């Protein structure tokens, strides 16, 4: 097995705001070339963690390093690019000038910076509008510009904080495709998101954070399968059926009504399908549809956040 180099190392990282512990002694590591997802509900501590790792705020405890350098140090910042949730280009400067400013801040020679900026702007479809002030851009265009600004220094590690939040489909797809390509080319990606599909499609591993604490770290597929209680059977009957009646069936842990269908959560979906057929027959009901469902990452996420999921039994 090939040992991959650790590029982000976090140990007992803590941040407090008054009495609130925003990030509570979290520890994890990210290896070179990995796409690491940081998943959690709003206010869980995702952005606070990313801001500590990128040097925007100082932690109150613990330590973090980027490629062996303390997080927030100039050397750590030299190898990272940051795409925050809210676009933060200089509105009065053109896209081109914003990129040149970033290149200057990273000490990139001007001739190399021009080449790189032109290539990046072409890739995100902004080259034709490079002279326009950033404030005249749409939200999606601004976020594409921010991605270019983060990449102008060709960083080893890219931090993305909810990069597609609130964007139009075209911009979101373009950004995600670019992130996928960057990761394929060997860049390490640290992605904070609450978009399950985004995390599922892009990430090699996902850390789930809730109320400042890490509650799981694993590959998306393993997280999904580990929550066995979230297997389910989706069934639709022709005739009157109540949630309470279905909840009484053996092995059912939870029932959710979804339009004209019921979703029954169970650890044994095969056996439950057989039970449902018997139940329908005994009550004189006709089954319109019956499907077994594997747990989604969203199911796993909800189960983890809610501490194992709610059971109505």
């Amino acid at each position: 097995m090939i040992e991959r180099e650790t590029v982000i190392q976090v140990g007992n990282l803590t941040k407090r705001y008054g009495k609130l512990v925003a990030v509570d002694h979290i520890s994890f590591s990210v290896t070179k070339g990995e796409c690491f997802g940081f998943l959690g509900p709003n206010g869980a501590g995702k952005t606070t963690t990313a801001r500590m790792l990128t040097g925007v705020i100082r932690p109150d405890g613990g330590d973090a390093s980027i490629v062996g350098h303390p997080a927030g140090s100039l050397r750590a910042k030299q190898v990272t690019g940051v795409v925050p949730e809210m676009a933060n280009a200089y509105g009065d400067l053109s896209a081109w000038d914003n990129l040149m400013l970033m290149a200057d801040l990273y000490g990139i020679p001007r001739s190399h910076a021009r080449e790189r900026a032109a290539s990046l702007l072409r890739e995100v479809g902004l080259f034709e509008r490079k002279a326009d002030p950033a404030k005249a851009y749409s939200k999606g265009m601004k976020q594409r510009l921010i991605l270019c600004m983060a990449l102008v220094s060709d960083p080893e590690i890219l931090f993305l904080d909810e990069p597609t939040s609130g964007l139009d489909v075209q911009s979101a797809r373009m950004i995600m495709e670019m992130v996928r390509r960057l990761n394929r080319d060997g860049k390490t990606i640290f992605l904070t998101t609450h978009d399950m599909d985004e995390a599922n499609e892009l990430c090699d591993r996902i850390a789930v954070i809730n109320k400042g604490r890490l509650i799981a770290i694993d590959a998306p597929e393993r997280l999904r399968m580990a929550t066995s209680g979230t297997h389910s059977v989706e069934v639709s009957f022709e005739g009157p059926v109540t949630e309470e009646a279905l909840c009484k069936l053996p092995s059912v842990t939870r029932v959710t009504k979804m339009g004209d269908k019921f979703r029954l959560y169970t650890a044994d979906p095969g056996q439950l399908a057989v039970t449902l057929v018997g139940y329908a027959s005994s009550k004189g009901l006709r089954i319109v549809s019956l499907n077994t469902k594997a747990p989604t990452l969203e199911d796993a996420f909800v189960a983890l956040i809610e501490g194992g999921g709610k059971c109505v039994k």
Partner: protein
Amino acid sequence: MVFGVLFPVFLFLSFTINRHLTAEFAIPGLLGMILFFTATAISPVVVPWEAQSRTLERLMTCPVRIETIILGDILASFAFGLAISIVPIIIGLALGVGIALPAVLGVAIVLAAFCFASLGQVFSIPPTNIPATVNMIASVVKFPVVFISGVFVSLSELPAWAQGIAYLSPLTYFTDIARRSMQGEGHLPAWADILALLAFTAVFLAIALRAH
């Protein structure tokens, strides 16, 4: 321009009209006020303004020291103060006010612009992303300073206790050295004014760099 030029000019006029002040006395005061207001006009609002537009966070993630960012803000204010200081000098020359010691005046303007720009940066230490909050804090300090710094009344005409208060203001030393440069005489020796401005600059700069 409003806070840095128009406002001090009108304030100055309101306190000098009908007082039969000579241009030789009035122009150094006007120069001091304009330099003080312009050099402290930009540096206090840059940090909150950048925090509001989130570009400060962008800068914080770049491989740049916070001290460099603060010095950059101070230099912007310094350059603005320096450029606008030409306006009262031109007005003075047009009114026939000569400059007896142009080199001394030049050194004093450069030093004072940097000193006041550093003071401006001190105003933005309270963490806020609302420029108006910082402007309010700055105004609370700036206005009393103008009235205790010998801008409208010569230091030698002030009672001893008022002179004691005047010595607490960096503007006092600039107004004094500006009068010496233009009129040929001042209340304090030029070297004392320069030393005082250097000391104030060091203190303001140290506070701004440490506290941000």
